[in-house]
């Protein structure tokens, strides 16, 4: 009888031990998977860089697995909006500044307050440029963490400049116009023109950053500083508008077919030496150089601040681009999502983004103290320009306003409307859009 007793007790003890072991083993076996979606995962350089960072993150956090989901930039909002509306969507995703207000208004992104407080609250945020926090903050609530911030500037081909005897990049718009005329020529000397000076991005992809920089460099802007009314009726705006059209239609210093040129088309033209200047930023260097190794881009391309309109009192003369990271409202494991965001925007990764992709950081400390950034001339120029740049209007109606301006500029260039009509129409329609809602 005693033996059976002992047997039962042993069995019971063993069972309890087994259950305890199983219970202890469970957390180690439980793994969370989060999805990260970014259009730059589809790019060659950035994709490798991001995946390397993700691998490092997974090593540091063995209980979190990250599934990378590339999405084409042009279709990003289509895919995200469809998924998030239906209660799904990637846990962490990247956005540029354009649609942020819409995403916030639709309730698709999480308020990051609890995570930021846990990470140090104000001290945590203090390292980011105050500018950079503006797009991601709505009504005092921070919804995203800025990752990369750059300012638009003038990228030019020094070799082509030397060929026509231009010593320095143009500092005013009048100089710019003169320089452009010199740069437009035939490479063979007698044949048709096949080298131009510049191009304007009139297709949707990339229009916003580049054309708005031109307007701002003229001392104008698309909207008034309070974003409530159109600023297209100012004389400066008219000057900028006319300047662009003059370059295309009168001077012909811009290659034909300009209305189809998008950001990538402009890069391609610069790579093939079909143009000598374009509006770009630090990313232009690796991108353009990769397109045409014979160009020797890293040596031949230089960057300078945007030309200015003399007498302009506006301190802002260029546009800022920023990429920020967000957590999906529907995310099932926001803590894991936050860990990924914090990782990707911490100093070590910021340095990686510059090393791999020539992208400046949204963290002031990194831009000002990282040796490689300080040594790189283009990076220093652009970093310095950030203080003179502003973001595009951060209102939900912005995409529609932008389309109206772009379509009217295209119409004026194509000649289906006169310049005055196009500008007046744009001004009127923008105000109509802003007054609605």
């Amino acid at each position, binding site marked *: 009888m005693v033996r059976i007793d002992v047997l039962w007790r042993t069995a019971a003890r063993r069972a309890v031990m087994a259950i305890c072991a199983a219970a202890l083993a469970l957390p180690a076996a439980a793994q969370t998977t989060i999805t990260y979606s970014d259009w730059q995962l589809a790019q060659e350089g950035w994709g490798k860089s991001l995946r390397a960072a993700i691998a490092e993150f997974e090593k540091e956090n063995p209980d979190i697995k990250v599934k990378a989901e590339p999405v084409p930039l042009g279709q990003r*909002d289509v895919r995200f909006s469809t998924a998030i509306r239906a209660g799904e969507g990637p846990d962490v995703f990247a956005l540029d500044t354009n649609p942020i207000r819409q995403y916030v*208004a*639709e309730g698709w992104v999480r308020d990051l307050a609890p995570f930021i407080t846990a990470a140090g609250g104000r001290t945590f945020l203090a390292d980011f440029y105050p500018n950079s926090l503006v797009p991601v903050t709505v009504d005092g609530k921070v919804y995203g963490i800025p990752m990369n911030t750059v300012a638009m500037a003038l990228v030019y081909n020094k070799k082509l400049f030397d060929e026509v005897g231009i010593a320095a990049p143009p500092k005013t718009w009048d100089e710019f116009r003169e320089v452009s005329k010199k740069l437009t020529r035939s490479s063979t000397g007698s044949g048709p023109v096949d080298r131009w000076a510049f191009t304007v991005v009139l297709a949707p992809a990339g229009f916003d950053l580049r054309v708005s920089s031109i307007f701002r460099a003229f001392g104008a802007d698309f909207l008034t500083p309070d974003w409530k009314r159109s600023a297209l009726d100012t004389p400066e705006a008219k000057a900028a508008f006319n300047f662009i059209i003059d370059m295309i239609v009168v001077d012909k210093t811009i290659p*034909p077919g300009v209305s*189809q040129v998008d950001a990538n088309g402009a890069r391609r033209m610069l790579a093939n030496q079909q143009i000598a200047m374009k509006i770009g930023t630090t990313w232009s260097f690796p991108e353009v150089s990769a397109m045409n190794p014979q160009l020797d881009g890293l040596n031949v391309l230089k960057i300078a601040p945007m030309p200015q309109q003399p007498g302009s009192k506006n301190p802002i003369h260029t546009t800022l681009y920023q990429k920020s990271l967000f957590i999906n409202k529907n995310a099932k494991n926001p803590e894991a999502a936050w860990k990924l965001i914090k990782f990707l925007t911490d100093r070590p990764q910021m340095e990686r983004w510059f090393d791999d992709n020539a992208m400046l950081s949204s963290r002031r400390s990194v831009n000002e103290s990282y040796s490689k950034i300080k040594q790189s001339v283009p990076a220093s120029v652009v970093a310095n320009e950030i203080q003179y740049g502003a973001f595009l209007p951060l209102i939900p109606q912005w995409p*529609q306003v932008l389309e109206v301006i772009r379509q*009217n500029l*295209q119409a004026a260039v194509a000649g289906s409307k006169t310049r005055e009509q196009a500008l007046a129409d744009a001004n009127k329609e923008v105000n109509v859009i802003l007054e609605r809602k």
Partner: protein
Amino acid sequence: MIGERYTGWWFVGPAGLVMALILGFPAIAAVLGSVNLGWGSTKPFGIDSYLRLWGDAEFRQSLWNTAIFVVSVVSLHFLLGMSVALLLDRPLRMRWLFRVIAILPWTMPDVIGGIIFRFIFDTLYGGINALGLAIGWIDQPVDWLGRPGLALLSVILAEAWRGYPYVMLILLAGLQAVPREQYEAAKMDGAGAWQTFVYVTLPNLRTMIVIALVLDTVWECRLFGMIFGMTGGGPGQATQNLTLLVYRHYFQFFDTAYASSIAVVLAAILLVAAMPYLRVAIRRAE
């Protein structure tokens, strides 16, 4: 012969069920969305979207563009499709080769077609300008996609090229069912080619022609990829059609109610315009 009515339901059932399940709910949701009753809507029932449509110049321009585009493209499709179908109906040497070539344009999906033709019509890098310059037809690159009239023409030509095998295929299959005895009889009566076409081929093909035209019209009205890829609706709004407008408002401006109302208006116009032809097709041919 009219069959037992319930058996009819059994035959139609599965397809109807699939459509109802998968499409029914979204379609109704879309229509409701246009009057602010869509899910997630914060506004009460209202036809404000439709009122806004009424005064929207961009809507009118898109409507006009759609009309021009569809009429031109469907006509070209019919002309090309009918001719080629007739050609391919004959016993030919290497007929299989010609038939495969005949369908090639249509193997290009409309989205990809948009990208490809954007490149073909590109001012600096495109094939049309390259060919034109090489044979001396033009001496300067022509801005096909940047001038409003030319852009619309380019889009029409591209889609005419791409889509005509669809009509050709429908008509070719239909031609197979024309009884050969009628052709023999016509020949014995001394009819020429044109008379044979008008009095033998056309009447037999009538149903299929109507169906081909109706389906092609519906298809071209909702064409998105080709235009989006080639011009994005530009320059200005010169090539923007209604489907592009819906896309813009839905995905770029996040204005789902307005997008729904445009779509509903488009569907309504199509239904009304197609109605008389549909009556012919719904009834059995005879």
